[in-house]
């Protein structure tokens, strides 16, 4: 189909036509087009619907500030809602569809909201939907929800990849317009490490959209020559399609590079987008300025747009919204638009200038002192009503109207650290405060310097200034001659009078009336107005709306605009894909895996694995004929109790503690004593937090006078090491002690069961005596196995059986478990997983994570007496607080069901028989439960008030959340071998 509204010239490649579709209709555009410019060229003006009233809307801008032309780009799982047509780079086969309309863009049923608009004023929600009470939930709210939102997500996993990266530079330059290029040239030639980031797909910024020459060159040509020089410099990094979206502390900036969004889909292995964290010693904001409209009645029709955008479409994209255009301006820049358009052969119906002293023109009619007061055309502008200087009315037919209300510097990034912009009367706009963060300066239009000449100069100047602080000397390059027009502007925000609605925030449908109503209802602070009317909260964050609203508010308050103040600009500058922030950390790669030394072997055995922090541990090892996990776990447990089993316990934290004062150090961090622990012995240790609650438990083995190996639970390995370093460096820096983690360096296996020693004897080198006498319970030592391989042996037991833990350098872990399984055949050795480990320790009454959950004291755990009063250990003093010593505190007990068949659920609460189950009567809770093949029933550990004094008592175990209640008997937590004889055989 022909491109009816395509003009001559422009920066598009007519040799590369691209076909695309909008709402199922096919069109053609050219390489270099955006979706918006291509649609305009194809004479499409209607591109979207507004959020609240579903008013027909056309493209309003030519950049990322676009409030109206939002589309769903691409299809199925790659569908991208709310994509601005103005920045969507055209590619062959691009699919786009309009959104927030039903059934079609031309006829939208919800447009009936528009008819009722007089009842849907600002804040109407809060006053209504309350009668009758029940209707809110059942009727009103669901209805509001259905109407909510703009575009649709597809609802399936995003198929594209994202990545992250880190960049470092002396000078980050944000925006590549005249000031940005001058900055880059200055800094680049000075040899500084420079990054030039540009959100557009071509460098040059506003230079690409203007006709005036730089010296004898077109602006775009000059930009191209500068860029090619910069490309030749090794110290300059050019990033196009890259938005610097936020400024953070200490010169860190967030940026997103759209690597593949201009392609139908990413090239294989390449990400869709990359999130860059940029560390900049200095930064320059050269992000230009955004034009603002003038509000009047029905100023939202398709075809009404920013004048500067019209100019950009005509000059850069050779496209126009209409052949007959009017301009409404309060400053000279509107005239430039009119000149450029007529130079492109567009008919300027009239230039309406609210200023009485508007400059005349020979090319087109200038109506000075006049105002556009209304417009007509349901799905697209047909005509405007103009009130002439003498008050008479005139109707002008036109297909498009350009609004030129002046330009707002893009100060946003200078405010991300809560810097506030200041008002500049010369250009009637906010500019960056000069005293804000020295790390980030502004130049060019972003600093309120709106002429090309000024922009070039300030860019170079600021670059020199910034580099000077880094002791890099730079010189101003020879810059081209450029226009230096003064800014002649008469502040004019909206047309007074008129009964209808004059839009300020086009996307959220916030009108002048809404601001006035909010003010009338007492919402006078700018933050209140924003929140009450939703002004500036749409996807464009009010880039074209806020200033107009401030002006209205200022008028109501009888204040100046700066006195009314602004809302705070926060990151991101423009919306950023959530996927980019996540990068590669998603799915299975959300966090790294930690694999045990026996992982490969366990996989071969068909083990079922479970996440334990980042570790993957074998949960159980099913064998043929086992259909339910309980069968496997029971078998593993029984095997350990009857013969011998092997479990990979490498995941437990191991910390090497050495130094002349190592023992004294341990005395401080454990509540029980370690000074007198003999070499060659291991001792259980309980670590308290300073507040007296248990932090972690484990063992410490003394390999030498000045050498211990401390073990921690798997979950607490990292925090415990951190805590020990705190004690070492901050609390007792005088102690001669050194710490290092060896968790990963050693593969460690528990060998447990009556036959454990017999099995080990088969691999331990005969030079080492591991008999009960030679290597008694709690012994430890460095040995060799399998012919002189260094190993460590600890006679400790978590299962309550005769047990050892044997450690070898990690690389031998796989071979060792294979060897142990081989050697253990004669004892029917079994590997056991974390489930069996859990059952065994519950049977033995050992505490684990569920008991050591940070809410338990030593006393609760039945270890109150372990807290030595003879020494100063972490947590001892505050253990003495009354509430921690209270009589009726919880104590760890065991539970058995009265009827052996009943299951006990971990997390159930305990109630006295005959009392109603409620919080007031709560006696405690079940911490861990399991089926014990040894007992032949479900057993549990629990915290029970005064539990230690209630052994034998029958208690109710209630779990209302499962509608379950059973009776249980309170027992000792030690279900097997309470005297610990099995440990010592």
């Amino acid at each position, binding site marked *: 189909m022909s491109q009816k509204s395509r003009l001559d010239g422009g920066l598009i490649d007519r040799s590369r036509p691209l076909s695309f579709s909008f709402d199922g209709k096919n069109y053609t555009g050219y390489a270099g087009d955006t979706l918006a410019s291509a649609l305009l060229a194809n004479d499409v003006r209607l591109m979207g619907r507004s959020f609240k009233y579903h008013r027909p809307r056309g493209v309003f801008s030519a950049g990322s500030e676009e409030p109206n032309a939002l589309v769903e780009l691409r299809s199925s799982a790659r569908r991208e809602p709310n994509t601005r047509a103005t920045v969507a780079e055209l590619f062959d086969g691009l699919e786009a569809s309009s959104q927030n309309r039903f059934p079609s863009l031309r006829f939208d049923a919800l447009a009936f909201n528009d008819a009722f608009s007089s009842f849907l004023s600002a804040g109407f929600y809060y006053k209504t939907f309350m009668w009758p009470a029940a209707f809110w939930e059942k009727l009103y709210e669901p209805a509001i929800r259905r109407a909510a939102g703009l575009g649709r997500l597809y609802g399936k996993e995003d198929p594209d990849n994202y990545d992250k990266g880190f960049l470092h530079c002396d000078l980050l330059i944000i925006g590549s317009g005249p000031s940005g290029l001058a900055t880059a040239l200055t800094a680049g030639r000075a040899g500084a490490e420079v990054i030039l980031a540009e959100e557009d797909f071509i460098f040059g910024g506003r230079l690409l959209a203007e006709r005036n020459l730089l010296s004898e060159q077109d602006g775009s040509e000059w930009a191209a020559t500068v860029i090619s020089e910069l490309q030749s410099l090794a110290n300059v990094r050019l990033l196009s399609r890259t938005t610097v979206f936020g400024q*953070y*502390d*200490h*010169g*860190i900036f967030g940026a997103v590079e759209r690597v593949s969004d201009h392609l139908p889909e990413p090239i294989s292995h390449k990400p869709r987008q990359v999130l860059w964290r940029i*560390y900049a010693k200095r930064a320059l904001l050269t992000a230009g300025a955004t034009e603002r409209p003038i509000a009047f009645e029905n100023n939202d029709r398709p075809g009404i747009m920013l004048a500067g955008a019209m100019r950009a479409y005509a000059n850069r994209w050779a496209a126009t919204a209409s052949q007959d255009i009017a301009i409404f301006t309060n400053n000279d820049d509107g005239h430039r638009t009119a000149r450029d358009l007529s130079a492109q052969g567009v008919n300027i119906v009239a230039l309406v200038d609210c200023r009485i002293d508007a400059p005349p023109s020979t090319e087109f009619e200038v109506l000075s002192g006049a105002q556009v007061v209304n417009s007509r055309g349901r799905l697209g502008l047909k005509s405007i009503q103009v009130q002439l200087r003498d008050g008479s009315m005139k109707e002008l037919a036109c297909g498009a109207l350009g609004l030129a209300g002046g330009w707002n510097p893009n100060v946003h990034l200078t405010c991300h*650290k809560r810097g506030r912009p200041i008002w500049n009367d010369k250009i009637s706009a906010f500019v960056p405060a000069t005293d804000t963060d020295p790390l980030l300066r502004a130049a060019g239009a972003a600093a309120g310097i709106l002429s090309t000449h000024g922009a070039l100069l300030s860019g170079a100047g600021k670059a020199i200034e910034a580099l000077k602080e880094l002791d890099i000397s730079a010189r101003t390059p020879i810059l081209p001659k450029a226009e230096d027009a003064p800014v002649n502007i008469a502040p004019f925000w909206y047309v007074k009078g008129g009964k209808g609605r004059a839009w300020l925030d086009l996307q959220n449908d916030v009108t002048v009336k809404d601001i006035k109503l909010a003010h009338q209802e007492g919402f006078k602070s700018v933050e209140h107005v924003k929140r009450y009317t939703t002004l500036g909260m749409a996807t464009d964050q009010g880039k074209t709306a806020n200033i107009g609203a401030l002006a209205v508010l200022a008028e109501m308050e009888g204040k100046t605009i700066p006195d009314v103040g602004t809302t705070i600009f926060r990151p991101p500058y423009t919306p950023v894909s959530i996927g980019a922030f996540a990068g590669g950390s998603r799915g299975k790669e959300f966090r790294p895996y930690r694999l045990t030394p026996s992982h490969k072997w366990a996989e071969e055995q068909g083990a079922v694995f479970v996440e334990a922090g980042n570790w993957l541990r074998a949960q159980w090892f099913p064998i043929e004929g086992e259909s339910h996990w309980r069968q496997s776990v029971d078998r593993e447990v029984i095997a350990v109790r009857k013969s011998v089993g092997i479990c990979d316990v490498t995941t437990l934290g191991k910390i090497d503690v050495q130094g002349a004062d190592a023992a004294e150090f341990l005395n401080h961090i454990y509540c029980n004593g370690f000074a007198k622990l003999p070499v060659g012995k291991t001792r259980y240790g309980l670590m308290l937090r*300073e*507040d007296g609650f248990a932090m972690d438990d484990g063992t410490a083995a003394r390999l030498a006078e000045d050498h211990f190996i401390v073990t921690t639970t798997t979950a607490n390995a*990292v925090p415990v090491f*951190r805590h020990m*370093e*705190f004690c070492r*460096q*901050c*609390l*007792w*820096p*005088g102690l001669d002690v050194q710490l290092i983690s060896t968790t990963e360096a050693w593969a460690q296996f528990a060998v447990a069961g009556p036959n454990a020693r017999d099995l080990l004897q088969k691999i331990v080198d005969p030079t080492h005596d591991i008999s009960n006498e030679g290597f008694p319970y709690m012994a430890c030592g460095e040995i060799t196995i399998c012919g002189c391989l260094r190993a460590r042996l600890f006679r400790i037991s978590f299962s309550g059986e005769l047990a050892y833990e044997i450690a070898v350098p990690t690389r031998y872990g796989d071979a060792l478990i294979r060897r142990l399984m081989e050697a253990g055949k004669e004892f029917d050795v079994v590997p056991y997983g974390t489930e069996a480990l859990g059952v065994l320790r519950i049977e033995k009454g050992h505490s684990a994570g569920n008991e050591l959950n940070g809410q338990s004291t030593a006393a609760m755990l039945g270890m109150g007496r372990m807290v030595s009063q003879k020494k*100063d250990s972490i947590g*001892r*003093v*505050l253990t*003495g*607080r009354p509430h921690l010593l209270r009589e009726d505190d919880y104590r760890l007990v065991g539970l058995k069901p009265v009827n052996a068949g009943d299951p006990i659920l971990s997390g159930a609460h305990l109630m006295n028989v005959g009392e109603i189950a409620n919080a007031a009567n709560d006696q405690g809770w079940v911490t861990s439960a399991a089926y014990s093949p040894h007992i032949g029933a479900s057993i549990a550990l629990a915290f029970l008030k005064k539990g230690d004094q209630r052994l034998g008592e029958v208690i109710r175990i209630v779990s209302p959340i499962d509608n379950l209640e059973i009776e249980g008997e309170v027992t000792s937590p030690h279900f097997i071998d309470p005297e610990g004889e099995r440990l010592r055989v």
Partner: protein
Amino acid sequence: MIINHPLLGPRDAQEFVYLGDASLIDRPDASGETALDDFHDYLYLRDNPAGSHKELWFHEQGDRSWLVVTRDTRTHEITHVELAFEYAKRRGRDK
């Protein structure tokens, strides 16, 4: 944020773990008459100024040193960084 490590130079604060008020170094005398009150104040009544704050950061993903960082809690500006064990020694912790 960037913490200027006294030995390693500028490092991203992401590599550190925050603990809080540097007064946690001044652990009271556990044998003192008023030990219970002293420890209560030590542990629970930390300094929380809107302004300059001496605080403890652990370089967990770096060299495992504890640092005492002086940072303005209103602007996040960091004015001083030193190794905690040196600070602690100055406070007489090694006696």
